[in-house]
């Protein structure tokens, strides 16, 4: 867990409003990066004074000491990221949070992604494959054209796509792509309403649900208590107690 200036190596559009950013250490002598677990995230902040706070972005891929992120432009913070050019400095703090426990994921594994929720699954899928998990399915839902779904095979054996406008794959919601009963564990990342639906399906089917939660963050490192969600074990910080939580622990009513 470090905080320092990295150097942008690449920052390309992969779909309208979706970018893939890669950053490397600022000097060869920089500290060896800590090992990153799938599902962990980094706080990213450009040198621009506004917005004040860094933004949490999941790890998308790790190659040597180069970190990659897949992100969607939403507001000022991600707009600043999108303006980065190779060679630009970027403050990177991480890796942060508790990621996916690969050892605890086994049997028939379903990864459910909603939109940019696909971001952490590429690195997770690789880790699962390296851990010998062969029964991994990816179900990804998008509003319109999909993105970030390349390179999942051969790590996952089945990629299912849904789009709300029917422009590709099945027309409809991602939850229409699978039956929770067919899986031993469902791992989901996406907008809160999707997570609620996924977890509800899991609960009804008796399937284990694992959710990577979102929250507005200030520090990302556990200092401010700004990112808490209500869980069966009390208020928990998404940044340090999560972002990955057992689905049955999360109360969705706590969300605005």
């Amino acid at each position: 867990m470090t905080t320092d200036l990295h150097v942008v190596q690449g920052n390309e559009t992969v779909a309208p409003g979706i970018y893939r950013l890669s950053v490397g250490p600022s000097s060869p002598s920089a500290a060896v990066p800590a090992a990153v677990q799938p599902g962990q995230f980094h706080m990213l902040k450009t040198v621009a004074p506004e917005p004040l706070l860094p933004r949490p972005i999941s790890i998308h891929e790790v190659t040597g000491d180069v970190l990659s992120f897949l992100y969607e432009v939403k507001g000022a913070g991600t707009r600043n990221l999108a303006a980065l050019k190779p060679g630009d400095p970027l403050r990177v703090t991480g890796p942060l949070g508790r990621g996916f426990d690969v050892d605890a994921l086994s049997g028939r594994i379903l990864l459910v992604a909603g939109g940019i929720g696909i971001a952490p699954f590429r690195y997770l899928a690789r880790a699962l494959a390296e851990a010998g998990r062969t029964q991994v399915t990816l179900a990804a839902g998008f509003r319109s054209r999909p993105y970030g779904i390349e390179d999942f095979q051969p790590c996952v054996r089945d990629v299912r796509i849904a789009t709300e406008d029917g422009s590709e794959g099945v027309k409809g919601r991602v939850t229409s792509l699978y039956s929770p009963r067919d899986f031993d564990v469902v791992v989901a990342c996406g907008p809160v309403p999707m997570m609620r639906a996924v977890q509800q399906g899991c609960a009804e089917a008796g399937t284990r649900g694992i959710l990577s939660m979102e929250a507005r963050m200030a520090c990302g490192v556990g200092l401010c208590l700004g990112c808490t969600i209500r869980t069966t074990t009390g208020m928990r910080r998404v940044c340090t107690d999560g972002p990955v939580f057992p689905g049955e622990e999360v109360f969705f009513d706590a969300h605005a």
Partner: protein
Amino acid sequence: MPTPDTAPDLTVELCGLTLSNPVIAASGCFGFGEEILPFYHPSLLGGISTKGLTLRPRQGNGGIRLHETRAGLMNSIGLQNPGVAAFVQTILPRIRGLTPCLIANVGGHEIADFVEAVGMVAAADVDMIELNISCPNIKCGGQAFGNRAGDAASVVRAVRPVCGKPLMVKLSPNADDLVGVALACEEAGADALSLVNTFNALAIDVHARRAVFDNVTAGLSGPAILPIALRMTRDVARAVKIPVVGMGGIETGEDVAAFIMAGARAVQVGTAGLVRPDALPVIVEELARFMAAEGIANLAQIRGIV
């Protein structure tokens, strides 16, 4: 006068404690000092003010808790904390060694709760109490204790006898008459004052047509408030005889120097440490470099000169 190669002396005396430098981690922006350990050891700082403690554990507020504004941060955490008993029993033993200046920040909504909470914490191994009187006073129609001199004085007077440790009272910038509140707290027995807490502020989600926060208003901190906080620090420092710890939007070593020039004994830094986890030790280094470059041997040379 120091020769150019004498390192400047950053130490600060605060209520009998000697701080290695004037930069204290602000309450609510530093947890209990443990989360920062992967980045640096908090002994690099002048001290730590803990997350606000209340007599009983609190879950804090629901809904959105953070919102960014231009150069500012609004928060509505709602004093989420494990309560003083859990703090004293479980947390304090773990963190006692992190800093030679451990300040327990205590909040409350009723005077009786304040007295009980302060009594428990002051009896434990902390170095100082910081009384957060910005919390709404349930008995007085929800106005914060810190808004009126009379209310502020009564809570200070009530906790004073049970507080065997130095007592610092943290003032609210929303006070009706800030200097009046400061004088009333001094008169009622405070050993030091700290200011400012967050400014009462409002953010509206115009698309949803509602306030961003469930509580409607929330507290504004960060660089946006610095010029007002600096003015208030000077106003209070000139009015009272006890030491004043200034804060509000500090981002750099030069900002610290400005607060010292405005009369502050030491400072606290909150939001900047959320923006970047190593901000506080960087600020300490910047202050040392600034003093060296400007030939300032120690902080007393510039304190209150503006």
